[in-house]
């Protein structure tokens, strides 16, 4: 028995015209997919939880847990944890828990602002280098090479020392303008690889202007990398801030950072005042780790969206 195409075709074609290309059975859409793969990552959820907790702890905490953080009170120095001072007091008689809240504010604020500044500069430089190419690119990338080679901590210490009067604002700016290099490299790499992707070619064959390509294709696609980098940048900045404070180049009195508190704590390590040492250190580790968790998960999410077939 032989079958002709016509016969088969008539049988195949259902009467209620399903689309010939078939229905769509793919995974769920866009941000829902991103969100679900993010939520699947328990560490990321934990990270997000920790960050939310510390935001509340630092900014809402002082409204609930009232402490005096303005005047020293030597009589109350090194009180162990008690009902009045949940985590005891430090060498100046400041309530430790209240002080941690204050330090948390500084850490989160500087982490956020410095990363924002770094990301904005880095994205602009990277995008310009990647888009213009040629001499401009070579020049900008040599600058990045040079600045990446100079140890960041040294430069920030020198600048911080010379222009003392470190406030949240000034430290954010100093750290920000010296931390944009990595994001510049990332964005440039992303732009270079996006430029030769087929969908950009497709857009060019339609007559798209450079502007259109940048706004409709390059920016939305490079955004993932940038956002991932911001989270890591926040983690690095908080870490750096802890070290600056520790070395004595943190925030000026009466402001306080966790690093300053650690520096202070070092002197009393052998005296058994554990409450001035470990709680603040644990806070630092938790916050930095939380941002790293989030960054890792976001990076996986960005990759998943690009790689899933």
């Amino acid at each position, binding site marked *: 028995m032989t079958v002709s195409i016509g016969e088969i075709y008539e049988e195949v074609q259902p009467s209620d015209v399903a689309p010939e290309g078939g229905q769509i059975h793919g995974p769920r859409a866009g941000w829902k997919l991103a969100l679900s793969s993010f939520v699947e990552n328990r560490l990321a959820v934990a990270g997000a939880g920790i960050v939310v907790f510390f935001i509340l702890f630092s900014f809402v905490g002082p409204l609930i847990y009232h402490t005096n953080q303005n005047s020293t009170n030597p009589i109350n120095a090194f009180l162990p944890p008690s009902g009045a001072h949940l985590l005891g007091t430090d060498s100046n008689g400041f309530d430790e828990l209240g002080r941690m809240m204050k330090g948390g504010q500084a850490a989160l604020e500087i982490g956020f602002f410095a990363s924002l500044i770094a990301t904005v500069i880095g994205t602009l430089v990277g995008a310009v280098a990647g888009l213009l190419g040629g001499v401009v690119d070579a020049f900008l990338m*040599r*600058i990045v*090479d*040079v*600045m*990446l*080679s*100079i*140890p*960041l*901590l*040294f*430069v920030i*210490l*020198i*600048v911080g*020392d*010379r222009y003392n009067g470190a406030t949240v604002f000034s430290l954010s700016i100093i750290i920000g303008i010296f931390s944009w290099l990595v994001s510049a490299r990332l964005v440039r790499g992303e732009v270079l690889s996006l430029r030769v992707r087929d969908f950009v070619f497709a857009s060019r064959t339609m007559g798209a202007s450079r502007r259109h390509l940048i706004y409709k294709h390059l920016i939305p696609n490079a955004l993932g990398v940038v956002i991932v980098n911001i989270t890591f940048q926040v*983690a690095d900045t908080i*870490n750096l801030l*802890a*070290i600056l404070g*520790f*070395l*004595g180049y943190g925030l000026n009195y009466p402001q306080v950072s966790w*690093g300053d508190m*650690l*520096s202070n*704590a*070092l002197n009393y*390590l*052998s005296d058994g005042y554990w409450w001035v*040492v*470990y709680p603040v*250190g644990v806070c*630092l*580790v938790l916050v*930095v*780790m939380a941002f*790293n*968790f989030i960054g890792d998960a976001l990076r996986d999410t960005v990759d998943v969206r690009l790689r899933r077939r």
Partner: protein
Amino acid sequence: MTAYLIRRLVTSLIVILGIALVTFLMTHIIAPSPGRAILGDRASRAAVNAFDNAHGYDRPVWVQFGSYLWQLVHGNLGYSYKLNQTVDSLIAENAPHSMWLSGISVFLSIVIAIPLGIFQAVKRNSVADQAITAAAFTAYSMPQNFLGILLIGFLAIQWHLFPAEASQSERIIPYIFAFHSNFLPIATLTITAVAGYSRYMRSAGLDALAQDYIRLARAKGLTEPTVLRRHLLRNAILPMVTLIGLSIPLLLAGNLVVEYLYNSHGLGLLFINELGNEDFPTVIALTLLGGIATVVGNFVADVALTVADPRIRIN
């Protein structure tokens, strides 16, 4: 290959030139008139001018930069007016201690991190892998100063296993052999580096494990250890070489924290002390040195990679 290395060398020199320009500008902006800084606020204007004139600080900027470079080429990094000593001699006194600390820590962290990362990649998602990942993640997220405080708090103060201070020997040989005294500084640097390297090594190992050539090696009937040793190890280590080169600025920063924390002789401690003294010629020279060390490290890493990777070597 030679052409590639020459090109790499030339770009390295250009970057070093750039670093010198940056440090020169820093000096110029931060301490435009060394006379004022050195002679003090009470010195007369004329005396300051005379000092600047005598030392050439009133010449045009580009001339000064030229002479700065000229001095650098001759190995002259400047003069510390605060310590009345050439920066070169300061470095000669302090560099060996720092180099030993960094060198031994990098060596140990490579020796620990590579097998650890490969083990994790091979046993991925096992309990052991997850435990190591958690530990590495914690160490990686920990500022070095807090890590140091934890080590001092427990190992030195609580359990009296190691001294809380590094060896105070000014001479290098006794310093090198003071393993017990230097245990904590070395441990602090190593733990941080292992945390970073092993994370990277694990993912490099996972990437390499997913490669087709691993499957072909298994299809040849090789035993698993042979597959890992011959086919995975080298391919997974290659990207590490570059990473180690790139991590030098972090190592230098780590040295600074550790030397300060354990009061250990070295360039880091010198930097902190002189920063407090507003001894800008010294701290900026140290910055320059750090930058050059980074460039040289990256160059060495590239040369090593060129030798180790036939795809670059034979081309």
